[in-house]
């Protein structure tokens, strides 16, 4: 009962918040609800939404992935540099995605074999991947990309941007995976209680590999989408993504301790954050405030659960004391 209503409550609240923000923005700036602006919003949210899907899966499994932005940059970089080197489109596509899977598998290996906190592992691999990106691009921006690819950002299906539909597709697949398949159930179990999952027959180590590899794959796909949208490969791609995405996912109701979460909630979280930032831009606020606010929200959101737990524990202790002294 609690989880169903609780998580639905979060989704409801988030949706409400989004509606309110949208209302405010429309009032302040009439062009907000225009088709042009809305489709621009959908487009710009595409990559972050993909990353949010990836991170949601990892968090539900009880892990943590800081490499999402770096892998995004890596896949774009691999794609771009191999194209310049003359390889065929299909090949560079596959290789770009494989790069993401490779990093994910590496993450999985380090987490499983070294038994280290995923945070530290992905922190280290993130900096390694970033350096590879810089090394390959030598600080330059690549704009020599396949023609057909560059137009993808302009393709619309039924008036909706193609790239956004890709997000929707991946989201649906992720939701089906998590809620309707055996693998998805095992992912929730892994995050819920690793010991219990193990004793119930779940191959805990195997699942960790799967989860991190998936995250790498989705992040790699996000990189390709980003490149198609901005029609270039930029070395700094996604450098702020981990903070933004993790904050949005946590707002969306996924627990940092694992076992609970929802892709839909994460997407709502991305939307909420994006609208907020969009709003700041429209209002002419300094964009650097973003980072300050995100940092504060992150600490608050994560800390909140613990604060609540601490308060509950203190109350329980207090009532026990009373009943014993009686």
């Amino acid at each position, binding site marked *: *009962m609690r989880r169903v209503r609780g998580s639905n409550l979060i989704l409801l609240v988030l949706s409400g918040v989004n509606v309110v923000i949208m209302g405010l923005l429309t009032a302040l700036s009439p062009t907000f609800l225009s088709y042009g602006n809305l489709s621009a919003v959908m487009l710009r949210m595409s990559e972050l939404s993909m990353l949010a899907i990836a991170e949601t899966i990892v968090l539900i499994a009880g892990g943590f992935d800081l490499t999402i932005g770096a892998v995004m940059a890596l896949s774009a970089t691999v794609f771009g540099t191999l194209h310049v080197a003359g390889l065929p489109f299909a090949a560079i596509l596959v290789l770009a995605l494989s790069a993401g899977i490779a990093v994910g598998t590496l993450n999985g290996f380090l987490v499983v074999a070294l038994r280290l906190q995923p945070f530290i592992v992905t922190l280290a691999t993130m900096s390694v991947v970033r350096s590879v990106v810089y090394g390959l691009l030598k600080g330059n921006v690549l704009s020599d990309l396949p023609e057909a690819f560059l137009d993808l950002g302009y393709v619309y299906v039924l008036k909706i941007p193609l790239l956004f539909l890709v997000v929707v597709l991946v989201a649906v697949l992720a939701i089906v995976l998590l809620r309707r398949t055996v693998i998805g159930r095992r992912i929730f179990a892994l995050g819920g209680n690793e010991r219990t999952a193990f*004793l119930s027959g779940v191959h805990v180590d195997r699942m960790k590999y799967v989860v991190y590899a998936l995250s790498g794959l989705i992040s790699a796909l996000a990189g390709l989408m980003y490149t198609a949208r901005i029609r270039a490969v930029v070395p700094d791609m996604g450098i702020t993504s981990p903070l933004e995405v993790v904050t949005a996912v946590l707002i969306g109701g996924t627990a940092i301790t694992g076992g609970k979460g929802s892709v839909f909630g994460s997407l709502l979280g991305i939307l909420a954050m994006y609208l907020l930032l969009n709003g700041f831009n429209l209002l002419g606020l300094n964009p650097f405030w973003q980072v300050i606010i995100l940092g504060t929200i992150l600490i608050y959101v994560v800390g909140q659960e613990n604060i609540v737990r601490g308060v509950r524990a203190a109350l329980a202790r207090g009532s026990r004391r009373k009943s*014993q002294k009686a």
Partner: protein
Amino acid sequence: MISIENVSQSFPGVQALDQVSFTIRDGEVHGLVGENGAGKSTLIKILSGIYPDYAGTIRFDGEVRRFGAVHEAQAGGVATIFQELTVIRELSVAENIFLGREPVRAGGRLDWNAMWAKSRAVLSFLDAPLDPRAPVRTLSVANQQLVEICKALVLNSRVIIMDEPTSSLTEHEVRQLFTQIRRLKERGITILYVSHKIEEIFAICDSVTVFRDGRHIATVDRQATSPDQVISMMVGRSLSMLFPPRTSRRGELLLSVRGASRAGEFQDVSFELHEGEIIGFAGLIGAGRTELARALFGATPLTSGEVGLQGRPSGAFRHPSQALANGVAYLSEDRKREGLMLELSIRENMSLAVLRRISRYLFLRPRRERELVDSYINRFKIRLTSVDQLVESLSGGNQQKVVISKLLMTEARVFIFDEPTRGVDVGAKYEIYKIMNDLTAEGRGILFISSELPEVLGVSDRILCMREGRLVREFSREEADPEGVMRVLTGGEAA
């Protein structure tokens, strides 16, 4: 003199201590015995200052004291040497002895010379040839324990509490420890010696207190009693324990274990389980039963030995999924940490071990899952508001029912139940015994681990006694009696 007056302590779901009162005389070695869960460690924690919120009064030499933290207890002259040693491995012997109160010179500078000199003094008092500068991690467990005793001495403790001090010591080291205890006694220090090893109690203690089910049963001088008497006070029960009637019909061989060993945990365990049989595993903490169960289940690897299933030698299982696939299921003793996923729903918890059965190819079949889950909820009358309720909101008894349902759903041939009635009330216990009977009536076999002797005796067809990792004796249901078994478990009698 320590006077404990009407002390009680309760936790959610369990009354750990109930109006306990007794006196510890100055300068004596006072033994405290009781089964697992009798309340010994709770009392230790109260005296050490870890649980300050108890009901009742504790007087030291007539003065009422209540310690709110461990260092308060230490300042008050009470030092505890816990079973889990609290030495800091990277620091030296001297630094551990003086942790938190290192001697300093002007300006906060550590007075190493003073620290080493004082350490040497107290080490020589205990006749311990340790180098104060040696890092503690290089010492044996026995010597680490010595360091803790030195720490207690340096604190000018008047009372030293020792919690199962010999659980990791060799016989030789145990004798050395007793020598140290006698030296401490000569200094006028009072010692509370908590152990379940009766022969040790009678070797070193002046008087003995017996706890049972959180209550004080008796405090007697060692001279005035005997091991047999103490044992029967430990296990004696009113005849309110009821067990469902049981007819055991032994069928085919189900599970055969030969020479199972795992370094440091258990050694050379061999037995056979037949269809329709309940084998009870009796033993005290550290006997190795849970470790054996886990290894049989594939959660940890066996160092050596064979495990044969249904007449087919299959070697040991290498992963719980293998065990489950072959019809072996394990119920852990720690249901909160190993049996449940507290923040997931009842439905998700129950179906976790049988995902293959409620799915087709890769996809879950929600309707099949719901049917299965509902059937078990009805069967065990689990009280809930909705199948999607979070498991953490259920009562302890209902949580246990969820875990058991999860196990039973696997329809295993061999069930390993590890302390299935821990933290469960009398009515629910009876239901669990009935479940076990029903399972064996269907031709399944059960390995039943429990630390409550009456339970083991009342439910099992055969009782296997484990002590310090070895299988020491087997009793049939007819020949087993509580005192006899306890004697074997505590070493009061040679195997």
